[in-house]
């Protein structure tokens, strides 16, 4: 025995061991490389989005004294709403700017026109007059007074102050003139132009002017769509999964259904959009662009995911639990609803939330059913035209100006935060509800 060398000692054994260790080291190195690559990609993605998007969360605004001249607003002395609605607020604002910079008076008349226009362009040209109109409309007694207001600057001035405009090129090639730069610098030094948190981004509806645009309407549209999706996909998905797993007879027809549900999960989402267009809009005559239609389409998209998640959660419940329930005389339905379902709940909820998060990020099917509406009002019912957050992002990303690109990124940040929150809830629910058995 002693003089018989072990097969696990000696040069050849060492060589085998070395080979094995080398392949393990290579495998580990590949694993680490893959993780590093994935983390870099993620960091790059987040870095570029946040790097552009954070600037949309603050905005510059201008403090201005405005004289609500009666002769412009209500020349006949009347205060009736119709007159006040149609009054020339643009002129009021132009005059206010002109009053702030009286030097324009000294320019030649041709130059004066251009200067006045550029002067007015410092503020948001539709936002400023609109703001005053709303104020006056609310309180007609203001006519004739001089008030101090804070209004957003134009997106060009905002971009210039954020350092996004290249001012080293000749004046004709830039969107901001030398004169405007001088004015803005004066206003900035005097504190009349200040940066502040951009509330409009969160609480305003969409607008043609980037400095006035916000995500409120698309966010509410997304919430409504998700509400419909959840209401349809969750009960149907969980119910179908329970039936398939617990009560379905084992035959060819059920196998066929199962295969097709799995296939359904892999169908490109735009196909569901086409289905919604053909069936819900054209055939059933449901309203175009409505959250109810979007919700139904996304429910179709989500419910295979919920079925698959529910089935795997149900299967993870040990059969001994069902046996235990049956052995004390529980019926099959009781065994499922009293024992299997509660134990599968964390998995079902996690799967459903992730399915909902996917649905929240869907754009293509919503484009097909017309949820690309340009909305200046928050939708208030499920049948009104609405749009969704990812569609809003898609629309904004189509606009060329720098101000839009930073708002696109900001909207993506908001969408990502919602998704991260949803996934966080899923993780929290899982750890909260999960029981060991």
């Amino acid at each position, binding site marked *: 025995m002693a003089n018989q060398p072990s097969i696990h000692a000696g040069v050849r054994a060492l060589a085998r061991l070395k080979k094995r260790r080398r392949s393990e080291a290579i495998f580990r190195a590949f694993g680490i490389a893959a993780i590093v690559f994935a983390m870099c990609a993620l960091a790059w993605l987040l870095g570029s989005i946040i790097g552009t998007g954070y600037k949309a969360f603050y905005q510059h605004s201008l403090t201005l004294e405005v004289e609500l001249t009666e002769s412009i607003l209500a020349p006949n002395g009347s205060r009736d709403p119709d007159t006040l609605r149609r009054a020339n607020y643009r002129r009021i604002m132009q005059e206010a700017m002109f009053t702030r910079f009286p030097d324009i008076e000294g320019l030649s008349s041709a130059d004066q026109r251009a200067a006045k226009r550029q002067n007015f362009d410092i503020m948001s040209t539709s936002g400023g007059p609109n703001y005053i109109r709303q104020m006056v409309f609310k309180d007609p007694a203001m006519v004739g007074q001089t008030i101090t207001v804070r209004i957003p600057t134009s997106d060009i001035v905002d971009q210039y102050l954020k350092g996004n405009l290249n001012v080293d090129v000749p004046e004709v090639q830039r969107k901001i003139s030398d004169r405007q730069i001088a004015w803005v610098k004066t206003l900035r030094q005097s504190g009349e132009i200040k940066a502040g948190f951009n509330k409009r981004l969160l609480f305003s509806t969409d607008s043609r002017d980037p400095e006035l645009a916000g995500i409120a309407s698309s966010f509410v549209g997304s919430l409504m769509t998700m509400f419909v999706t959840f209401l349809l996909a969750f009960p149907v998905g969980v119910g179908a999964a329970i039936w398939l797993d617990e009560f379905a007879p084992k035959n060819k027809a059920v196998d066929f259904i199962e295969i097709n549900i799995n296939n359904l999960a892999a169908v490109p989402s735009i196909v569901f959009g086409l289905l919604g267009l053909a069936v819900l809009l054209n055939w059933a005559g449901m309203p175009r662009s409505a959250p109810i239609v979007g919700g139904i389409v996304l429910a179709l998209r989500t419910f295979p995911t919920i079925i698959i998640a529910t089935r795997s959660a149900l299967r993870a419940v040990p059969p001994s639990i069902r*046996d*235990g329930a049956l*052995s004390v*005389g529980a*019926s099959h339905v*009781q065994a499922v609803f009293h024992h299997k379902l509660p134990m599968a709940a964390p998995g079902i909820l996690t799967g459903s939330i992730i399915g909902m998060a996917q649905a929240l990020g869907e754009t293509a099917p919503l484009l097909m059913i017309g949820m690309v509406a340009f909305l200046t009002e928050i939708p208030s019912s499920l049948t009104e035209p609405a749009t969704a957050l990812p569609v809003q992002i898609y629309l904004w990303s189509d606009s060329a100006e720098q101000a839009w690109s930073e708002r696109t990124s900001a909207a993506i940040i908001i969408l990502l935060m919602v998704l991260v929150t949803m996934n966080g809830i899923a993780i929290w629910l899982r750890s909260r509800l999960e029981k*060991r*058995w």
Partner: protein
Amino acid sequence: MTENTSKNIKFTCRDVRVSYSGKEAVKGIDIEIADRSVTAFIGPSGCGKSSFLRVFNRMNDTIPGCAVTGDIRMDGEDIYAPGLDPVLLRARVGMVFQKPNPFPKSIYDNVAYGPRIHGLAESKADLDEIVHNSLKRAGLWDEVKDRLKDSGTGLSGGQQQRLVIARAIAVSPEVILMDEPASALDPIATAKLEVLIEELKEKFCIVIVTHSMAQAARISQKTAFFHMGDLVEYDETDQIFTNPAELRTQDYIMGRTG
């Protein structure tokens, strides 16, 4: 151990066959099982003893592809009669499994589950009493009386198995089937379980499948030896272990096959 076992017959089986997807696991068994006594089923793995045990509470019904034929009567009543609801049968014939399977609920809720679904308790006080009595009879009351709200899955293996027995007792069954109840327990927990079985046979008809021949010898009045789906020998336990009639039984008991 030839004490006066009750002459009452609980189960009468004639030509019982169990097959899984056409493959026969139990091949025509005739047996009578006495009430208020312990009947042990022994035999090598795959001999059909567990499959046969599950005939008595129709747990085989829940296995896809499983078919049971033959005549099985409990107190003279055909338990496979078309009109008979297996759910009610299982309330009368409780079962304890190889691996303790308490529900992931509190100890109280584990025991109260059966009475609740069958509506056995009129009031909360009734239910409390059922839970108390069941745990007491399962010999677990003193160990858990201060933590009835704790999870049943937090108990030790032996305690879990007694909890499962309490859960079965709580619905007032007539029969308790046990499928290798001690195979996952240590010797001390096994000893406690055996003492419990000894007590339970005063009230219930107990049928136990076991791999431990010593256990069968200790606790049962009658023993059935199964082999390859056949009932080879069925007799008083003393007889089986001291003077088996069949050579196959003898070989198995002596450890020569199995």
